């Protein structure tokens, strides 16, 4: 793949933006991105030359507008949670409770919508529930110095129990009834563009996601709060001695992660009009995949979004590939996204995490 190196720069831009750490991982990321792009190009080329081969099928699926719109839909909860995770972890609080935040908001959004009849009120309700749970997490980790990983795990477990519990109490089963869903919004003209039209004909949550990604990027790169969050995660003492309260910044960041994850969870259930609470619930690991996404995206909101799209794109492709009957057993096609994540991780290796992430900080502590 001789074209890989040339392309790697362009392709890695979003991820290696100002945040990226030392050279070594920059190059690993660039390499992976390069190889990915090269593979895609080779696939498209192959598909164009041999449209009837399996490669042709892949190429078809890849360039289909439907794949893009499916990927966008699948991205929504993951990407929102990933953005939330970035805020929290960059401030020094590792939030592996994202899964729980998604669950609690997914349920509450349906419940509130069901009770009030307003989809957007439900959306707000979901955000509120998630934010409250995040507040509990913040109090426990920041105030009571609880271990962040264990507390995050607890948040997940609590939500995993609480949402189906409430559904059972209220609706008599772990699954809620169906409520109305917000319709898709189609931007005139733009929606007609081949392939990229998918970006302009989507559920409101997709547009909200675009907005959230952009805003998050802006907050980190351009606002004082963003800088404080970064400093709080890298060297809280520097922030403290600069006269900014680390605890406050961390509270704000964790609550923000609650808000963002809440948007993801609400969007997840409201776009389907139902919460299903059996087993791992409808969230089914999306919160954990969000963590993968932002680590791979190197804590950059745009990088995290693109990583999510990579994963969601694979997921969308596996759905379509199943239909094409390409000879690979369905059960195995379904696990391709997970395999790809492992392979990618093995290639990229370690992510530079914020220096002080996971550590409790007490002002005045020597």
């Amino acid at each position, binding site marked *: 793949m001789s074209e890989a190196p040339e392309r790697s720069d362009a392709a890695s831009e979003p991820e290696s933006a100002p945040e990226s750490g030392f050279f070594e991982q920059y190059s690993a990321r660039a390499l992976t991105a390069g190889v990915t792009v090269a593979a895609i190009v080779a696939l498209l080329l192959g598909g164009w030359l041999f449209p009837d081969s399996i490669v042709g099928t892949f190429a078809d699926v890849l360039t289909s507008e439907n794949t893009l719109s499916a990927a966008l839909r699948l991205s929504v909860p993951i990407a929102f949670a990933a953005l939330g995770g970035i805020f929290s972890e960059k401030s020094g609080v590792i939030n592996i409770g994202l899964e729980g935040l998604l669950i609690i908001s997914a349920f509450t959004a349906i419940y509130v919508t069901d009770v009030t009849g307003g989809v957007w009120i439900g959306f707000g309700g979901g955000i509120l529930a998630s934010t409250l749970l995040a507040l509990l997490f913040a109090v426990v980790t920041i105030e009571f110095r609880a271990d962040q990983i264990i507390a995050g795990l607890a948040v997940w477990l609590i939500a995993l129990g609480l949402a189906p519990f409430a*559904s059972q109490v209220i609706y*008599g089963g772990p699954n809620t009834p169906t409520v109305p*869903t917000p319709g898709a919004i189609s931007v005139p003209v733009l929606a007609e563009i081949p392939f990229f039209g998918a970006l302009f004909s989507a559920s409101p949550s997709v547009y909200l996601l675009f907005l959230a990604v952009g805003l998050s990027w802006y907050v980190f790169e351009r606002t004082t709060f963003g800088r404080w969050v970064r400093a709080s995660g890298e060297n809280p003492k520097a922030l403290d001695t600069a006269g900014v309260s680390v605890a406050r910044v961390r509270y704000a960041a964790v609550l923000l992660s609650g808000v963002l994850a809440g948007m993801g969870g609400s969007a997840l259930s409201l776009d389907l*009009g139902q919460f299903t609470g*059996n*087993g791992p619930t409808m969230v089914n690991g999306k919160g954990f995949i969000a963590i993968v996404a932002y680590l791979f995206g190197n804590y950059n909101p745009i990088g995290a979004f693109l990583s999510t799209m990579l994963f969601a794109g694979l997921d969308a492709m596996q759905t379509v590939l199943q*239909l094409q009957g390409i000879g690979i057993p369905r059960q195995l096609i379904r696990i391709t996204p997970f395999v790809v994540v492992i392979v990618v991780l093995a290639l990229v290796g370690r992510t530079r995490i914020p220096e002080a992430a996971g550590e409790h900080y007490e002002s005045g502590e020597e």
Partner: protein
Amino acid sequence: SGGPTGGTDTATDAPETGDGDSGGDSSGEETTTAEPTDDGPAANIGMVYATGGLGDGSFNDQAQQGALQAEEELGISFNEAQPDEVSQFSTFQQQFAGSTDPNYDLVCCIGFLQADALSDSAESYPEQNFMLVDSAVDAPNVNNYVFAEHEGSYLAGLMASLLTTQEFSAGAGSTAGDSTNVGFVGGVESDLIQKFEAGFVAGVQAGSDDVDVSTNYTGSFNDPAAGKEAATAMYNSGADIVYHAAGNTGTGVFQAAQEQEKFAIGVDRDQSITKPSYSDVILGSMVKRVDTAVYTSIQSVVEGNFEGGNTSELGLDQEGVALVYGDQLGSEIPQDVADQVATAREDIIAGDIDVPSSPQ
């Protein structure tokens, strides 16, 4: 607003329910609010549902329907258990079987996964009556009910095949006459679901040689998001009718149909009624009368003629499965289609059509 209501002991409050389409009409997984008479309920029934739980809008809810009907009509009382792991089946079966307060007259085991546990439980509690849905355990105290899902699915396939090859529009959906495929969304790969698939495919082929079936298994009976993606992908690749046998995952199929302005076919219950918000895209449902099975076996217990050791095979003939047309769209199905479907039904019952029960 909740909590206990009423001031007297006998005042029974209707359980607060979710919307009709949550399926269940119960306030909890366990209900003992039968009209109490002086000498107690006509019978005590234990319900052990399939994993997936109530509110799936299909299989479990349909089973519960039978119990509710029996509660109303026969004055029985029932207690429910929703296992979430296979290993809990035997626990619950035995809990019911071993209980003395009350003593359960019948334990209904819903779903084929309970078969293994039940063969042990039935042996351990020879005095206890059991009924099993979707599989057969050979024991003198068990009545089995299996369904010919492939027969009903054949009719669904035939209808889909006939409609997709013509210009048809009704409710919120429409078909394009030139499309040549339809879809099938399954839950977890298993023999049972493949039975649905096989019948459906056979029916589609009977309708027209040119129509293909795209198939997708989401790997879950409770993942509407995956169901939606699968169905959307099918609609986008030209299918305009998708049949699902995927429990609650099917909710996503309906939603995709609505968004894409295409059609779907429900399963297990008449989903145009249990999921009324999608009745404008549900052409029909392949109902599987689990409720009848449950009701009949309860009835036999109440009437004292439960025998055990039987396996009832419920097909089109026994009305154990059927294709029912959608509540809203049914009337718009072209008569010739309905006629052909009706004829096929007769032929199957008469044995003139042999429907395969596993994919070829």
